[in-house]
């Protein structure tokens, strides 16, 4: 790190560097920047608004159609006629304008864009989904925006934003077995608070720790601390092994100005869980397990842009192999993409999950935002690998959502109560 390859004499953070490179001048936190956008991502749930903004309000077509992607993932396949109609309009729009379309079943927007190489180091990627911070996993400045901003970006090829201050998060030590990137992210949110990084970028110094998928989990959850972007500094061979070209200039400079610095010792971390109904309401799983000893868990959901990747399904399968989901508990597993699903099919993971009693869903967002496929009834309790536990998020307002890693979720499914992986050793075994 600390390579002096910036455009100016004053040291810059990663966010400042990317926004300077994609703009017309060297910028620092607090400056207004108008920047080139490398990819604009539109999800099905705003497709109608987006098309309306483009056609009626702006009377514009996408300036660079190849830089725009529409992903049908939030309610896929369609659940009602009106949803089907909105998706039909999205398909027609893509056909007319030449923008990319990823249709039902291809998967969750962030996962798909990463798989397709549509987020790359040093790029700016805007998405109509708040978890667009995910692209920071590969050192892209990813940020979520609303339909109006997304349409303006598609029409102009640019966006305008205030250059964020940055929070520096340094990870030290190594994770203990059974502790995952999800636990790290929840701990980071606990430390920062749900508004601890509002308007700011979180710059994560992880060295050569964490795979691309784990980096996606970390960057994904940065928005839950309010962040505009969550950037993981590339380290080691992790990204180059995937074929990414990492420009020298993308690394933050030594002496860059941070608004706050925190250090997280990974070796001291235990599995974490967010209790209802705010993401920063984080506890040790062991502690919640005691508190919720007599509380049956009705549904366990493994999937979403946070934790629906192959390594997440592997972690769940490792716990569930040779065991059964507890009677009275439903386990819903939804791979993040068709690619993840295919891989999990080929290596037997899906069979393991199926035999354990999992219900498998179409690649996509599933019940994460409460629109279809597994929403919760009043009073039900769900342990989910997703990213939000807000009231009413996954169905009824009196349902309660706990957020955890895939391994903890799988253990909970076997025990029928909040559990740690080590708890399942003698439970739920299939003869």
């Amino acid at each position, binding site marked *: 790190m600390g390579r002096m390859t910036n455009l100016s004499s004053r040291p810059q953070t990663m966010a400042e560097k990317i926004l300077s490179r994609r703009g*017309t001048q060297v910028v620092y936190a607090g400056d*207004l920047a*108008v920047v080139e956008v490398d990819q604009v991502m539109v999800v*099905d*749930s*705003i*497709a*109608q*608004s987006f098309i309306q*903004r483009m056609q009626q*309000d*702006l*009377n514009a077509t996408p300036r660079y159609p190849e830089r725009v992607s529409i992903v049908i993932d939030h*309610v896929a396949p369609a*659940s*009602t006629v*009106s*949803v089907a*109609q*909105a998706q039909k309009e999205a398909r027609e729009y893509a056909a007319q304008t030449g923008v990319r379309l990823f249709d039902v079943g291809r998967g969750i927007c962030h996962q798909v864009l990463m798989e397709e190489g549509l987020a790359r180091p040093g790029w700016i990627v805007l*998405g*109509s*989904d*708040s978890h*667009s911070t995910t692209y920071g996993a590969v050192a892209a400045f990813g940020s*979520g*925006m*609303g*339909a*109006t*901003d997304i349409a*303006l970006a598609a*029409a*102009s090829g*640019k*966006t*305008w934003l*205030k250059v964020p201050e940055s929070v520096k998060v340094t990870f030290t030590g190594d994770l203990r077995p059974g502790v995952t990137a999800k636990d790290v992210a929840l701990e980071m949110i606990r430390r920062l608070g*749900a*508004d601890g990084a*509002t*308007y700011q970028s979180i710059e994560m110094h992880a060295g050569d720790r964490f795979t691309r998928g784990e980096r996606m989990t970390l960057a994904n959850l940065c928005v839950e601390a*309010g962040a*505009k972007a969550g950037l993981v500094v590339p380290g080691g061979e992790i990204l180059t092994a995937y074929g990414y070209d990492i420009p020298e200039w993308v690394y933050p400079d030594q002496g860059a100005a941070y608004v706050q610095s925190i250090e997280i010792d990974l070796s001291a971390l235990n599995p974490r869980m967010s209790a209802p109904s*705010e993401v920063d309401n984080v506890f040790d799983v062991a502690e919640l397990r005691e508190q919720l000893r007599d509380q049956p868990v009705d549904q366990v959901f493994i999937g979403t842009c946070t934790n629906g990747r192959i390594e997440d399904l592997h972690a769940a399968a490792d716990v569930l192999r040779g065991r059964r989901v507890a009677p009275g508990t439903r386990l819903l597993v939804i791979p993040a993409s068709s690619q993840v699903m295919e891989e999990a099919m080929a290596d037997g993971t899906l069979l393991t999950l199926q035999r354990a009693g999992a219900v498998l869903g179409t690649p996509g967002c599933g019940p994460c*935002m*409460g*629109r279809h496929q597994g*929403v919760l009834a009043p009073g039900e309790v769900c342990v989910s690998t997703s990213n*939000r536990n*807000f*009231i*009413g*998020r996954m169905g009824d*307002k009196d349902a309660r959502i706990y957020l955890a890693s895939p391994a903890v979720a799988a253990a909970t499914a076997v025990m029928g109560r909040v559990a740690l992986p080590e708890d399942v050793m003698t439970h739920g075994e299939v003869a």
Partner: protein
Amino acid sequence: MPRIWKFGDSVNTDDILPGKFAPFMAGEDVFQTFAFHYIRPEFAAQVQPGDVLIGGRNWGLGSSREYAPQALKKLRVGGIVAPTFARIHYRNLLNLGIPAFEYDLTGVLQDGDEVSLDVQTGVLTYAEGTVQLPPPPEFLREALAEGSILAFFKKHGRFPGEPA
């Protein structure tokens, strides 16, 4: 006279408009009737044009869904005052032309208090006095002067602050 609707800290976009009532699910004409459906079910039926929402910290955290502020716009909410806003939502509010002021009024005003808010000057008048609310950030005023960011872009073919 416009009234105050007071909320607490961390009102999120699912509170403002639960995801399952998105326009493409609930219908373009009625989705606003589900504003604050779970946390203040009487809101949509009783809110009057010009009423002012007062929130606590981190108003609007959560999703980028623009239909949350769109619902408030359709209900003709006069403005939102909160000590801090979540960034995506704040941008969406200003993009749609809903006045948003970063200021803490939770200790000053109560639910149902009558007020008048001059969105141009940021002066809020209530029974016992007036408050000068801070103006939006400088680079947004240029856009707001044209009515909205969309109107600005359409007229000038560029963003505020971008060289012509």
